[in-house]
């Protein structure tokens, strides 16, 4: 029903009226063609300002109506009606073609007719968010491939890892590039707290970005404002676009009564993507076992201290395995240890992973009456992860309420969300000691049997039993923990409690003029607890981190709308006060833990180490917007905003930026005969500037605490980053044009955009040679350009009463180019991968290039090989090995309906872009990956194709397999650069909606099933899903330091409405 949409006040054509006559009181009712009352329709006496909105029954009473007056009744999404005034009128409104009058939520939460906008906005219904309810690692992943130009790359797994979200490419060299998330007007903290170490693949945990806290069950719709024009009103933070989320609410003035909805989803997850590993050779280094003598008996002992798989070939030899030894030691070394066959593992790494199970339940109760509405929703989600000893529980409570004064002019509203989340046993990521995948793929023994590892990860005395023994008589782990020890003993947990929401009041001063005030709060406390047990390979350690942040936005808004003849005008004047405060407290044990298994900072062997950090930021803003329309055909709009930020130096902390957009609905000029084919056509254009500030404390130089080696005089040092007292705001200028067309009564349509944006004066820490005394300096420099095209096509090839097929395709191509860095600077380093290669920005190249040593090529482009070793040669210094970001992305969804059944299938894809894989590097080096034992290379060696001199003499030296694989570390970094192109079968869903009578107790019943991440195809997907490289939502992308297993999700949902 149209009236279930958010309503807007429409302004009506105004004609001069001269006749004065007697007046009457008009009572009336407005209904739709299906006899439902139309609530909130605007009824106006033509030529006057006398008007009113219809109440919950669709009724209105207007006094002082001239007897010969005309009433104009307007409601968004319906055709405007005019009727002769009478004491009792009844108006039936017809639905307008829906797709032509789509209303979207725009900046500041204002609903606008989409056709009037001069910029690109895409709206997605809330049901998209819950289609694969239990299978979403991060709720925003539901949007993957569904909105042209919105690029979401997600980490794998299910415990809420980070998603990298980009709209129209990277615009800031070092600042935030994630779009702003706004829920019902509340700007939500959406970034992650992952360490740089975690982002660059060095290790640590991926705690996910905070957009994770969105509650999919409470979302009514999502509106994505793509360009700077769309978001100019939100200011700097909307530089990267805005994702506006509107939550479900009760419907004041709707049918009086209660509604209850219930849904429950049971999901399972299975690891479906693991690297392909060799199964011919066991662990160690060298062909032989070491003879050892125990109780006078000789044994063959494998090389467990070496965590590589260059050991002896499986040949059924009887050897003294770590498991034999551990069992013997656990039994008090009675008698002689057993021996076992040297063979490929019966229980290989795939058996390590369990089946994850999730149950998500949502109950929502809504109540509505003529002047008030409330909705209470509670979501509980319980997940047992696919890794041993992992689980997550979430409780989300959402309450929204609104109430109107009797004249419906004053509205007060509240919307509060409370989230309580606790997680246990996230996977360590990157090159971390307890990332089991590092120990399965990069370093380890291929013959390890997971069942044995599980059976014996701990000795009876509580110490660790690791396969990676220092020696046959020394069980101390050399490099690796037993993977089960990592999971059960060295686990982390974390909790987050978060409240976000707003309180507001609005008053309709005049039918055309409305004032609104809202206080928006986002507050959270995030706690992280990380453990390394006594007896682990690394020293025992306990770390506790507490983060707390609040952000308060006071928002004042005055909106105006009126019509003058063929002209419509609208205006807005507003102010916003933003205050953000962040606190961080860190404590860690020093020199180990005294009591095993007791995790408290007091258990530290030496005095525990503590540190804290605070950050304050404020922005004051005023903004205004004015728009004009002519004959519903031509629209022009302009906005200005001024920000004052606490983070910039006095004198340049206030900055001003404008935007202007226009649109022309050219189909209005066409005769009806043309409109039967080309029903709607619009061109739009917009230009906007957006200013941007930076993080606090980049102006005044400080020192960093370093040591208390002399307890009487604490030692300080210079920081690595030099601040800059002359910073000025960043500036983005963007231009976009678009074309929207609808054909055949909505059966086919498209929306195409072209944009060009340039961000200059970027505030960034420029990497420097340490010889300058610093490794970076904050500078105001750099210029990045993004140009791109976006295309969204939708079509309904078949539509009958019982069957329909709709298809939608989104395509986006973004060309990014770094135009300038600081004068004389060619390259800006973002970070280094843990071992080789780094990520940076280079003039003339797309942002995010992988820098590393390349193959050495001769003049004809042949790879150069060292004639002595037969191995590839590498360049002396680092060169550009390719860009991290894709240049072409998109998605394709097909939805079907057969009677009460519905189904959809969604693919998404990404083309271009590369990543550096540390897993590939070490997986080759250590003899783990399939290639290290394929094609008899261990027996026969391998011939590197290439030339040995400038004359083009081909290489004939066969390299030893071991040396060849070692050359992945010693030789060109380019060998471990993989393509991140992929096509994914992202989502499949199937549902059945039971036909129910409106009068029955159960109003609606639906059963559905989903599958997510079911398949991936691409040039380099043999071992890894390219999305494994994502370990943060920040700018450090394109480095895989240690992967996470790829996971497929399946589940069933039941929805019931009472």
């Amino acid at each position: 029903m149209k009236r279930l949409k958010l309503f807007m006040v429409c302004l009506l054509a105004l004609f001069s009226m001269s006749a004065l006559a007697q007046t009457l009181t008009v009572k009336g009712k407005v209904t739709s063609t299906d006899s439902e009352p139309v609530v909130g329709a605007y009824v106006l006496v033509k030529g006057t300002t006398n008007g009113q909105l219809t109440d919950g029954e669709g009724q209105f009473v207007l006094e002082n109506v001239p007897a010969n007056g005309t009433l104009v009744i307007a409601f968004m999404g319906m055709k405007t009606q005019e009727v002769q005034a009478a004491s009792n009128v009844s108006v039936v409104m017809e639905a307008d073609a829906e797709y032509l009058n789509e209303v979207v939520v725009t900046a500041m939460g204002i609903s606008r007719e989409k056709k009037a906008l001069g910029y690109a906005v895409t709206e997605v219904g809330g049901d998209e968010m819950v289609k694969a309810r239990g299978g979403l690692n991060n709720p925003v992943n539901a949007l993957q491939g569904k909105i042209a130009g919105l690029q979401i790359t997600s980490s794998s797994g299910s415990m809420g890892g980070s998603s990298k979200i980009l709209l129209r490419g990277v615009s800031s060299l070092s600042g935030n590039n994630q779009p702003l998330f706004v829920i019902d007007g509340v700007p939500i903290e959406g970034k992650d707290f992952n360490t740089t170490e975690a982002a660059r693949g060095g290790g640590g945990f991926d705690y996910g970005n905070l957009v994770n806290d969105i509650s999919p069950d409470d979302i009514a719709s999502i509106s994505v404002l793509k360009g700077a024009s769309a978001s100019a009103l939100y200011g700097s933070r909307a530089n990267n676009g805005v994702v506006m989320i509107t939550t479900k609410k009760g419907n004041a003035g709707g049918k009086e009564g209660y509604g209850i909805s219930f849904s429950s989803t049971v999901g399972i997850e299975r690891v479906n993507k693991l690297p392909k590993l060799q199964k011919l050779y066991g662990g160690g280094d060298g062909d032989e076992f070491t003879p050892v003598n125990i109780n006078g008996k000789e044994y063959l002992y494998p090389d467990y201290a070496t965590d590589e798989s260059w050991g002896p070939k499986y040949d059924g030899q009887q050897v003294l395995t770590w498991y034999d030894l551990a069992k013997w030691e656990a039994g008090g070394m009675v008698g002689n240890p057993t021996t076992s066959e040297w063979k490929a593992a019966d229980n290989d790494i795939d058996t390590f992973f369990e089946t994850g199970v999730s149950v998500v339940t949502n109950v929502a109760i809504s109540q509505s009456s003529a002047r008030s509405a409330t909705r209470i929703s509670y979501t509980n989600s319980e997940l047992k992860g696919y890794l041993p000893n992992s689980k997550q529980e979430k409780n989300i409570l959402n309450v929204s309420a609104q109430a109107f004064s009797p004249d419906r002019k004053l509205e007060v509203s509240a919307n509060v969300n409370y989230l309580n989340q606790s997680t246990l046993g996230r996977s360590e990521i990157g090159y971390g000691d307890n990332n089991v995948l590092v120990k399965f793929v990069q370093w380890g023994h291929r013959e390890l049997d997971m069942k044995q590892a599980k059976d014996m990860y701990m000795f009876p005395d509580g110490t660790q039993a690791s396969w990676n023994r220092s020696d046959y008589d020394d069980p101390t782990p050399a490099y690796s923990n037993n993977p089960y020890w990592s999971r059960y003993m060295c686990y982390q947990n974390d909790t987050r409690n978060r409240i976000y929401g707003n309180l507001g009041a609005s008053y309709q001063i005049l039918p055309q003029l409305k004032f609104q005030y809202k206080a928006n709060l986002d507050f959270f406390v995030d706690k992280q607890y990380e453990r390394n047990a006594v007896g682990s390979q690394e020293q025992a350690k306990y770390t506790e981190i507490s983060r707390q942040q609040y952000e308060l936005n006071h928002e004042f808004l005055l909106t105006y709308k009126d019509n003058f003849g063929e002209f419509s005008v609208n205006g807005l004047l507003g102010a916003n006060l933003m205050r953000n405060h962040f606190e961080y407290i860190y404590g860690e044990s020093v020199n180990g833990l005294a009591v095993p298994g007791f995790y408290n900072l007091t258990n530290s062997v030496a005095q525990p180490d503590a540190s804290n950090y605070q950050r304050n930021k404020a922005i004051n803003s005023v903004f205004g917007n004015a728009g004009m329309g002519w004959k519903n055909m031509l629209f022009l709009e302009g906005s200005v905003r001024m920000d004052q930020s606490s983070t910039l130096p006095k004198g340049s902390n206030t900055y001003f930026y404008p935007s202007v957009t226009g649109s022309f609905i050219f189909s209005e000029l066409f005769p009806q005969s043309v409109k039967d084919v080309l029903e709607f056509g619009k061109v739009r254009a917009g230009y906007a500037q957006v200013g941007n500030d930076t993080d606090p404390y980049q102006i005044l130089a400080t020192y960093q605490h370093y040591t208390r080696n002399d307890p009487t005089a604490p030692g300080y040092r210079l920081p690595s980053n030099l601040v800059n007292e002359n910073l000025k705001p960043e500036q983005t200028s963007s231009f976009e044009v678009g074309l929207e067309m609808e054909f055949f009564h909505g059966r086919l349509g498209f929306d195409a955009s072209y944009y060009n944006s340039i961000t200059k004066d970027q505030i960034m820490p420029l990497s420097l040679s340490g010889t300058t005394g610093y490794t970076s300096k904050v500078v105001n420099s750099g210029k990045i350009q993004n140009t791109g095209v976006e295309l969204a096509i939708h079509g309904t090839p078949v539509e009958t009463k019982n069957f329909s097929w709709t298809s939608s395709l989104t395509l986006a191509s973004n060309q990014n180019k770094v135009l300038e860095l600081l004068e004389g600077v060619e390259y800006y380093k973002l970070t280094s991968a843990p071992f080789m290669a780094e990520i940076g920005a280079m003039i003339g190249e797309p942002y995010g290039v992988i820098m590393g040593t390349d193959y050495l090529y001769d003049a004809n482009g042949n790879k150069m090989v060292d004639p002595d070793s037969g191995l590839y040669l590498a360049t002396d210094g680092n060169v550009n090995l390719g860009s991290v970001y894709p240049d072409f992305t998109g998605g394709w969804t097909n939805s079907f309906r057969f009677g009460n059944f519905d189904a959809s299938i969604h693919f998404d894809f990404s083309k271009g872009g590369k990543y550096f894989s540390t897993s590939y590097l070490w997986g080759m080096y250590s003899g783990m990956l399939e290639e290290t034992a394929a094609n008899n290379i261990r027996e026969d060696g391998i011939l590197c194709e290439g030339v040995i001199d400038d004359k083009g003499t081909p290489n004939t030296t066969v390299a030893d397999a071991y040396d060849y694989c070692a050359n992945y570390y010693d030789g060109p970094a380019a060998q471990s650069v993989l393509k991140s192109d992929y096509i994914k079968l992202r989502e499949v869903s199937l549902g059945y909606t039971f036909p129910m009578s409106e009068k029955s107790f159960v109003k609606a019943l639906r059963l559905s099933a989903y599958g997510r991440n079911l398949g991936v195809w691409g040039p380099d997907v043999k071992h890894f899903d390219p999305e494994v490289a994502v370990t943060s939502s920040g700018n450090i992308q394109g480095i895989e330091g240690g992967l996470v297993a790829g996971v497929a999700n399946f589940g069933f949902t039941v929805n019931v409405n009472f």
Partner: protein
Amino acid sequence: MKKVFKYIIVSVLCFAGLNACIKEDMNVDPNNPKDIPSNSLMSGAEKFIMDNIYDNWFSGRQCLVYAQYWAQRNYTEEDRYQIRESVNNNYFNYLYQGVANLIKVEKLNKDPEFAPGNAVYGANCNQIAAAKILKIWLMDVITNTWGSVPYSDIAKLESDNIYYCKYDDQKSLYAALMAELNEAIEMIDVNEPAFTAGDIIYEGDAEKWKKFGNSLKCRMAVHVSKVDPNWKTYIAEAVESGVFESNDDSAGYKYYGVGTDYCIFYEGFYVDGRNDFSIAKPFYQILAGEADEANAKTHPWVGTKDPRLQFFAKGAGGNKRGMPYGVPSNKTRSLRSAAPNWYSLQPGHLKTDFKVPMLTYAEVQFILSEYNNFSDAEFKAGIEASVKYWANIYGGFVETDELNNYIAAVGAATPEKVAVQKYIDLWMNGTEAWTEIRRTGYPEQLVRPGEKTGGDVLDSSGEITSSVYVDFEPLEEVKGDIIARVKYPTNESTLNGENWKAAVAKLKDGTNNYYSKMFWDVRTSTYDHPANK
């Protein structure tokens, strides 16, 4: 209703008005201080420098293995001269950041705005001199690692906007360091404290800093002994001005050992839980008085056990002869059976409060012996001082008789004996030991590329079951000798590209290699000792 509305508006505006003003101090960092006393910066700089030299990376995997004091027990890439790019990039930057901190200490004592206030923490002239001396000590480490490196342009980003520092030719760099060292020595006022607190190296004793300056001058003079005819003049000047007179004067940094203020070698082994290193066999054999039979090489004291053996090579002895140096990783498995397990034994140099050596009194005595044409008196004084110094550091004791017997067994000074005794004394002082190896070619018994390396394989009772010997094959081209330098970091090729290219072009063959020699390294063959010429 309108009244209610008015009240709402008014109260909202009042509330907003109170908060609306952004105060300028909101952008003052509450987490880090803007100003600190100069001695706090000196204290931080001293530890920062020590942390980044005496650790398992710059020392453990580079200079300590190049000097063949340590050998890796499992992954031996660095022993075979293949550096880790990320380590090379980072440590180059760390060491220069160390230099920048010291230059800042100088500034805080020179700048009229800060100098008077900082005089409270020690005489300005002494603080400047101490910062300079430590800086020159560190620059000597830097240049002897990479060769020609930036100096005249460094740390001038704030004052002169220099983003790209040119690489100074090593010869002129040495001259500049020498001149600055003279300036620092002359500046010291021994009647005033250098620092009231915070100076871990000398507890603020200006006189000791002066002796350190002069002793450092002797070290640098002897480095250039074959390329600068004035080297003896420098030493004469230093002696005149006052060099170390006893072990008490030796320069070293003692870690507090409390909390995280521990020696980084400890961290590398115990916090990271890594058992990567043990005593290298060549060094063990020198201490144990054993010849290298595999290569038919020897040293002057075959049959004489060094009293320092018990400290340096804890756990070694009998068949445990240390980790053979530079064997391929796949041979380490069996050979490490002969290497003491330092992880479980925790020798003194892996303790939290180890005092890392920077320049010892004994080293000065060996330099003076060389200066006096390998005189016996200084040579013997050096040996005695070294044994006592190290016994003290390890909390041990060497009986006078044992010491005297040893000194007697060592015999009269020769160039080789002086070089090898100095090598033994330079234990844990990787860069200086490696520098002296490159300058003198001694000890002869170190393993050179192409020579045999290996040893016995032991069973759990320490009995020899077999032995493994292989050729020492470096992974990088080193022209048949112990590594001559470390490659310039690749980071510099992107962040300081033009200067990096110019510096690489000046290296032998115009490539960024490991065999280009230091300007003071004029040996013509592996075992050639320029001091003999």
